[in-house]
């Protein structure tokens, strides 16, 4: 079975609703490992070796985070900066990640309509995540279409349940 590593990044899960529902809703799945970055590295001192070993053990990587300023929360960026080392992830001899598939699972405050060329935000979420996509490709990984949960601030009850179900379905069945 394909193993999936969810690199989860939310700085204040205690205040979260959507991401908490999502992560709690999928953590029990077989073959899914959740790596809670802000919990493990509250002081931003990332254990590079540990993270790399963990990546190697999984075929599928998920980056799950709330969209902050059209980007990832800061620890996610730190994580990429230090874990994707030259000679390991890319560059000469750097092929540890090659062939893996990576998917961003993102929650946004704004609604779906705003994330279009004509909409308020003027770009799709996929476009905004271009740095993630390029980085994944640089490391020989396949960047799947992001799974976006729009209007996350308003999701509750049925909406949240549906989001969790979508997430689970994707994790179990893939694209």
């Amino acid at each position, binding site marked *: 079975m394909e193993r999936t590593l969810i690199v989860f990044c939310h700085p*204040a899960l205690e205040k979260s609703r959507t991401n908490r529902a999502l992560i709690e809703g999928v953590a029990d799945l077989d073959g899914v490992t959740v790596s809670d970055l802000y919990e493990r590295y*509250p002081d931003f001192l990332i254990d590079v070796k540990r993270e790399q070993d963990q990546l190697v053990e999984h075929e599928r990587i998920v980056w799950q985070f709330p969209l902050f300023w059209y980007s990832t929360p800061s620890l996610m960026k730190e994580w990429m900066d230090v874990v994707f080392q030259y000679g390991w992830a890319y560059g000469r001899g750097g092929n540890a990640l090659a062939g893996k598939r990576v998917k961003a699972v993102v929650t946004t*405050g*704004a*609604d779906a309509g*705003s994330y*279009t060329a004509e909409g308020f935000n003027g770009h799709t979420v996929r476009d905004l995540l271009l740095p993630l996509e390029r980085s994944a490709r640089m490391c020989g990984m396949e960047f799947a279409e992001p799974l976006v949960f729009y209007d*996350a601030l*308003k999701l509750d009850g049925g909406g949240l349940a549906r989001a969790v179900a979508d997430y689970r379905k994707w994790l179990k069945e893939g694209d």
Partner: protein
Amino acid sequence: MANESMFVSAFIYLVAAVVSVPVAKRLGLSSVLGYLVAGMLIGPFALRLVGEEGQAVMHFSEFGVVMMLFLIGLELRPSMLWRMRLPIIGLGGSQVVLTTLAVTGGALAIGLGWQMALAVGLILALSSTAIVMQSLQEKGLGGTEAGRSAFSVLLFQDIAVIPILAALPLLATLPAAGGGGHDGGGNVLSDWLSHQPGWMNTLMVLGAVVGIIFAGRFVLQPLLALVAGTRVREAFVALALVLVIGIALLMNSLGVSAALGTFLAGVVLADSPYRHELESDIEPFKGILLGVFFISVGASIDFSLVAGNPWLVAGIVAGLFVAKALVLFVLGSFAGQGLDQRLIFSLYLAQGGEFGFVLLGMALSGGVLDERTCQVLVASVALSMALTPLVMLAEEKLVRPRFGTRVAGEREADEMAEDAPVILAGVGRFGNFVARMLRSQGVEVTVIDNDSEHIEFLRRLGIKAFYGDANRHDLLEAAGAAKASVLICTLGGEEQVARLISTARKHFPQLKIMVRAVSRNHEYELVEEGLDFVIHQNAGSAIQMAEAALRELGWRAHRASRAAKTFARHDHAATRALAGDHRDETTYIKRVRQSLSELEELFEQDAKRRERESATPWDAIQLRKDSAAGYPDAGGAKDGD
């Protein structure tokens, strides 16, 4: 009353020292010169404050030389001594042989018999360890090439005294005069020895040397540790004196130079953690004794004799200087010294020495030299010693500027200097962490602590650690404070901390001073001092403990971590803000009351801050509310707004 006269002369000598040294220093002269001149002034030919006992005082204070050699030994690790064996034997050996030949030649030329001439040659070949080492140190020349060569030569001479002492009686041509010998006689051991064949004597000497080395390792070190462990300072000082005096006595009774014995003991202890403590305990005694010694040399110059034979004495002194300096100059060029170094080397060592007095006394009593010759020579040697500081001064002011001498040559970096960038004063539980952390980053730390067990332990881990009170200037100096960049103080008592700070600021202004405070009040005081860094001893660990507790309560790690850091930062700022107000209060009661109310204030501030902070980062809760209410900017805008 005998005691009283002893006190009177002690008083006179010490007053002379107290007056002469500052005056000499004020005039830019060396302290040695000050002592010598003071001696001449209080001596029988000027103020007549001291008289016959001058000789006795001289013999007594010769012990300063013994102590000095002990201290020199402490500076020299065995490995270093071994590395110096070539210059010691090469330079020192040739100096003694060549100078003896030159002086003997001169003496023959003025009509002395060969035995007398040879005796004079041997006696005058020796230079003054006391004057030269003291001056080299004072002028900061100890580490230069010339300084090291001079040291090698002096060391050889000090060793050579033994065979010369043994050989002198063989040169006797006159009936023995008896008396006047300095340290011989009376002792059972030396009586017995004098009846043994020569090889027995040699064997005893070797035995003593081996004994000192052995005892140093296996008896003295543990003994020092034991006494240091009592933390009674004077017990340690007493032990240090016992050590030096004991070895001197032993060596004397074996007919070996006491200076050599203590020197060896010093070398053996150079590797021990008590090195600096011993050094600073013996140092003042040595200083005073040497000073008194120089004064007595000055006082012993028989000016009436000099006045009676001005040309003879002047000729001997000048001849001695020229002959010795020439020999040294030639040796210096063989040793590959630059011209500037060669000049220092040759001019500094050109006088007669204190061992000369000893040997002259022997020569007189043993019937080697007649009384008049002896007196003339004693006066000449004393004069040559007295003139040496002037020669040094001339070299320094007139000759050296022409050569642009590098005064401070490089030291043997690893051996002589302790140049870790960080000095850690106090290495208890707190200091331990500091040292470990810094060492883990490859930053060398020199530790000073007055707990002998800590020191032993750190030494075993390969950390440079010295035993003693960190607030002492000399110990700091020895630990390399002049070169270090940071001084970290984790001493316990507030008094001690204050003294360390003032010493460090006064003598080593370049040091960044970082201090661990033992209480809130202490922290305020230190903050007011304007130190580079002050931290409350519990600040770090207590806050970490609270952070861990928050996590145990189910807090997210990142939230707890931020809370802890914010708290620490805020607490730091609050302490600094309150430090100013803290200044006025005086009494203890007031202090306690104030610190309680401060604590209250701190708690209040914390509470207010909590309200403010809980509203801040990543607050999706407020966002959610506003978004539900249709507020346009909440969480990005809706399309079409």
